[in-house]
Structure formats: structure tokens, C-alpha cells
């Protein structure tokens, strides 16, 4: 077995194409992201907002109080400037403020554009509207508790923001998706070892198939080697992101390793499965690997930041069956949400996917006798 593993490792490491896609490509892409996004911003920029007092109603007072509590919070999410309607509109036109809140019986918001800052302002208004009655009750019955209630609601808002797919730091999500993509690109290693195992796919596979070594032993050795090399690739990528690009992958490192172990196995077993498609030419099978890797990563938010959230709204099942999305979501669950339940669910899904793809690949690969060669 050691003999088989040793040479399988050597063949993988010396295969330039495999090394490029599984190790170098994610590192290059990560570097590109880093250069494109500039240095990482882990703090939210304070949003300048104008406040126009429409009337003197209870609702208006409560809304102003609500905004002031948020302004005074540690996060410094917003900076309010009380203005007349005309001045506020002028400032909005000159983009000196991101939006204008109108405090009245029905609080309103006007924003200058459609970006993350304006979305945050809208979310603040939505949160207030949803909980307005509660704020009024507290303000009238127990005014001392108002600030605490708003802060509690604000925390809920912060959590909701992440739950809808908008990371507090928008750029980090690309790196999470990148890890998902890197896991999927282990398929190139899986493909290489799979091709070398099949007698109806490669001459080397034929020679191995008729040797005195059982196919099972060869499959186990190849799979272990492929998975091992892929885990090294992923470890290098994580170290590169964390220590060279200084991307904050904080959270439980063991949980992150758990994600990479399960996710990496899916990548390898997917490649091994594609390698067994003996009727397809080599170029087409490689194309399937590239497209699978990139498309699943695209859906997880690698190229368009909001797509994962959009899919979560329109077709959540897709996010649950797309391994790259599950990997990305699992990373969110430990780095952003700190939600052990969500993490566990994602890990269960990843392990289930690994078992299914691994089992199918094994059943196809283990044949020793063929109908045609």
C-alpha cells in the first residue's frame, strides 16, 4: 500500500496542470481579489445621513430617539445631521449624505443610490417600523429602558443583515467563496488518479487492472493520496489568505479545518467520478471539471457578491445542494454568524455529499472486468 501511495503522490505532484488548478489558481485568484479590493476593511464606514423632522408626533420623537441611540452606539454606524427638508435634499443631491430620514407619523427614507450603505439605512428603517409599537410602549411605560430596547433591536438588525447574505465586510465573502472554489478544484487531482485507475480509459489503468494487486487496494491508495495532496493545497491556501493577505478567517480553526476536510473530499470524489466517464474525450471531461468548479463557485458568490443571497431568497434549495455554497455558508457560520447549529447542518450536508459522490465513484471504479475496452 505504501508503495502505491508513494508513487501516486509523486505522479500528482509532478502533474503541472493538476498543481496549477488545485493549488496555484486559487492562490492567484486570491491575490487578484486582494489587489482589486485593496486592503481589507474590517470596520464599517460611518454613514452620513440627514434627518428632517416632519412633525412633532410621538412616532416622530420615538424614531429620532431610535436613530440617536444608533448614532451613539459603539459601532458608529450612522452620523445624523438634523436639517430642513430643502437643505437635506440639496445635500443628498450633492451626495454629501447617503440618505434622508423623514421623522413623522410614518417615518420615511430617501436614498441617493443603491449600494450597501443605502441598504443598511433601509434596514434600519425596516427594523424600526417592525418594532415601532414595542418602542412606543417602552417609551411611554418605561422610558429608562428605551435605549436598551433599541440596542437590542440594533443587535438583531446586525444579525439579520448577515443572515440575508450581506456580510458586514463585503469583500471577505469573495475569499470565503474562493475557499469553496479551491475545495471544488480538488476535482483535478481526483480526475488524474481516476483516469490512471480505469482500464477502459488509460493504458496505465489497463496495466494496473491486470496486475496482481486488487483494484480495491489501488482505489484506496489513489484516493488517500489525492485527498492528502488536496488537503495540503487547501492548508497552503488558508495560510496564504490568513498570514500573507491578512484576510480575517478568525473563528474556530478546527471548525474551518472540518469544512475543508469535508469540502475537499467532495472536490476529489467529483473529479474521480468525472474520470470514470470513459465514453467522453479527455478535453470534454476536463471542460466539465472547469465548468463545474467555476459555476458552483459563481453561484456561491465568487464573481458576483450578492448572488448567494439572491439564490437564498429565490431558490434556497440550490444553495443547499451546491457544495461550493455549502462550504461558503459553513465558513460564514463560524466567522460571521457564530452559529454552531448552522455550521453542523452544513457539515452534515457536506459529509452526505462526500459519501454519495465517493460511493458512486467507488462503485464505478472498482470494476475489474469490462464489457468492452
Amino acid at each position, binding site marked *: 500500500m505504501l508503495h502505491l501511495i508513494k508513487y501516486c503522490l509523486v505522479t500528482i505532484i509532478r502533474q503541472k496542470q493538476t498543481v496549477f488548478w488545485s493549488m496555484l489558481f486559487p492562490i492567484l485568484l486570491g491575490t487578484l481579489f486582494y489587489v482589486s479590493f485593496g486592503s481589507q476593511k474590517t470596520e464599517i464606514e460611518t454613514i452620513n445621513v440627514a434627518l428632517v423632522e416632519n412633525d412633532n408626533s410621538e412616532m416622530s420623537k420615538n424614531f429620532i430617539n431610535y436613530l440617536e441611540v444608533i448614532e451613539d452606539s459603539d459601532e458608529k454606524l450612522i452620523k445624523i445631521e438634523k436639517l430642513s427638508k430643502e437643505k437635506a435634499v440639496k445635500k443628498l443631491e450633492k451626495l454629501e449624505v447617503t440618505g434622508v430620514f423623514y421623522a413623522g407619523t410614518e417615518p420615511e427614507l430617501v436614498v441617493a443610490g443603491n449600494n450597501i450603505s443605502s441598504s443598511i439605512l433601509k434596514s434600519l428603517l425596516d427594523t424600526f417600523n417592525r418594532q415601532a409599537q414595542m418602542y412606543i410602549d417602552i417609551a411611554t411605560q418605561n422610558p429608562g429602558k428605551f435605549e436598551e430596547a433599541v440596542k437590542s433591536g440594533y443587535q438583531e438588525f446586525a444579525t439579520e443583515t448577515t443572515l440575508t447574505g450581506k456580510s458586514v465586510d463585503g469583500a471577505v465573502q469573495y475569499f470565503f467563496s474562493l475557499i469553496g472554489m479551491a475545495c471544488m478544484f480538488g476535482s483535478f487531482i481526483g480526475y488524474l488518479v481516476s483516469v490512471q485507475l480505469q*482500464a477502459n480509459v488509460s493504458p*496505465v489503468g489497463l496495466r494496473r487492472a491486470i496486475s496482481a494487486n*486488487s483494484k480495491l487496494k489501488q482505489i484506496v491508495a489513489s484516493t488517500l493520496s489525492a485527498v492528502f495532496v488536496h488537503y495540503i493545497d487547501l492548508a497552503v491556501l488558508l495560510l496564504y489568505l490568513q498570514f500573507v493577505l491578512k484576510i480575517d478567517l478568525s473563528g474556530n480553526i478546527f471548525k474551518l479545518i472540518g469544512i475543508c476536510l469535508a469540502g475537499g473530499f467532495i472536490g476529489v470524489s467529483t473529479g474521480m467520478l468525472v474520470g470514470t466517464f470513459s465514453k467522453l474525450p479527455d478535453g470534454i471531461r476536463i471542460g466539465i471539471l472547469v465548468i463545474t468548479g467555476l459555476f458552483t463557485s459563481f453561484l456561491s458568490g465568487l464573481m458576483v457578491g450578492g448572488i448567494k443571497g439572491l439564490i437564498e431568497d429565490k431558490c434556497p434549495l440550490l444553495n443547499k445542494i451546491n457544495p461550493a455554497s455549502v462550504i461558503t455558508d459553513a465558513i460564514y457560520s463560524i466567522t460571521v454568524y457564530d452559529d454552531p447549529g448552522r455550521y453542523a447542518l452544513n457539515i452534515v450536508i457536506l459529509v452526505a455529499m462526500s459519501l454519495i459522490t465517493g460511493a458512486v465513484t467507488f462503485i464505478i471504479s472498482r470494476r475489474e*472486468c469490462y464489457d468492452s475496452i
Partner: protein
Amino acid sequence: MVKVENLVKRYGNFVALDHLELKISEGEVFGLLGPNGSGKTTAISCMLALLKYDKGNIEILGERIKPSSYNIKKQIGIVPQNVAVFEELSVIENIDYFCGLYIKNKKERKKLISDAIEFTGLGKYTKMRPKQLSGGLLRRLNIACGIAHKPKLVIMDEPTVAVDPQSRNKILEGIQELNRNGSTIIYTSHYMEEVEQICTKIAIIDAGRCIAKGTKEELKSMIKTGETITVESIFLSEKQLSEIHALQNVFEVHYENNILVARCSSAKHNLVRFMDYLQDNNISFGKVFSELPTLNDVFLEITGKKLRD
């Protein structure tokens, strides 16, 4: 050593092997001769339990071979038609890898690898990768990977395809040496000269059937042709052609593009009688060849087509 009985292999309606019967004894260099697509590789794949077959029985070393017959497979070495080596491994690593599929002991393997390298003359190229080798050297590496574990039975499936004459001779000499060292060889080819040169027993296969088998002498004695006389640059009338056809022992005459080919049954002085006729009739001519029957003649007479058709 190898017994193939009533072997039938179909691909849909196409019959690749049609009740094939072979018996190969220990110590033989057994040639499977047939044109491309005749079923040689299919037969080999069935013998190695790599290909399912519809009917028949295959025994190797006295046991029916199955995919899991690892003890039998340990005794077999295969040199496949396509070069089957890892591009990423050097010459010595490739030999070590494939030898290691049969021999676990490192020390023993080291000696076997060194023997295989010496046998195939790859000593100068051990650190090279397959891409750096010429076609002939690559074929030699293919052989080294198949025989390094010193198997009792070596199956070589067209090992000289696309090899230059010099390398081909080296390979053929090597096969004979392997046989002298105790290995039984099954050698498939569509090159009759090779089969004639090295095989002690030959089976001619066509359309999945064994149409003749025996030693080369036995095969040649099966056919009418004893001698083929070819005359180049000769101008003959219809009358003269008829007269040549009527000469003693001549049973077939073919005249095209001023080249005359006459097939004669086995007898003494066929060429003398032929030359006498040409001289007596004052017929001028160019080169004259007289050839003893070849396996191609055997194939031609039995099937009505040439081996390389």
C-alpha cells in the same frame, strides 16, 4: 500453460471471437498472427480476465482465470499494445512501480529492476522521463515494466508497432532471450516476418476464428504453394502466358504491369524449368525472384486475402 476453449465474444451483433480454441504449452513462443481487427487483442484481454466473454473457458496455469485470480496474475507479465507508463515518473521509477505491483520485498525488487534495465538496455536512460525517450526506447521501457517481475507467462501485444528496424531487432532478440530464460511467450502481431522469426508455434486468426495453427513448417505444408517465382520487366503475349501456366508444377499465374508472379507447387527445379522456357522462347526480362512460401501465402490461400489487407 494456457487453454482457451470455445471462446465467444460478441459486441452486439458483431462477433469478435468466434469459438476460438488455443492451447499453449510451457516454453513455447506462441504467435497469434492476424490482420488488424482479427480479434488478437480481444483474445488477450479475455485471457487476462479484463474483458467479459459470452461463452467458453480460459485456463491459465491449470486454473480458470477470474478478475480476482491474483495468484495466477502474479505469474503473468503483460506488454500492452499502447505504451502504458506514467509520464510523470522516470524510467527507473516506472519499472519500480509496476514491479512493486507483484513483488513486495524491496531488496528483491531492486535486483529485478536492475536485471530488467540491463535486459532492455535502458541503463543510460534510467533518470529520464518517458517524454524524453525515442519511440524505440519507449517500447523497451514498456517491455521492462511488463517483465521486471520475471513472470512465467509473458503476453506481448504487438510490442513492435511503430518501432524502427534496429529497435525491432533488439526487441525480438530480447523476446527470444526471455524464452530461453524460461518464460512462455504469447506474441501477437500482424507482421508475419516477426512471427516467423521468433515463434515456435503459430495460430493464424481471422474474423475471430483460428483458421490454422501449428509450427511455421506445418502451416506452410498445409498450402499448395511451394515456391513463388516473380519476374520483373517482362513482356508476354496471351499465348506465352498460357504456356507458362501449363509448365509443370505451375498452378497459378498473375501478370500485371509487366510483372509476372507464378505460384508453383513444392518440387525441385521449378526455377530451372521456368528459366529454360524464357530462354527457349527468347523472352527478355528484368529481375527474377524465387521465394519459398511465407505465412502471408498461408493466410492468402486460406482466406483469399492478404494479411495486411
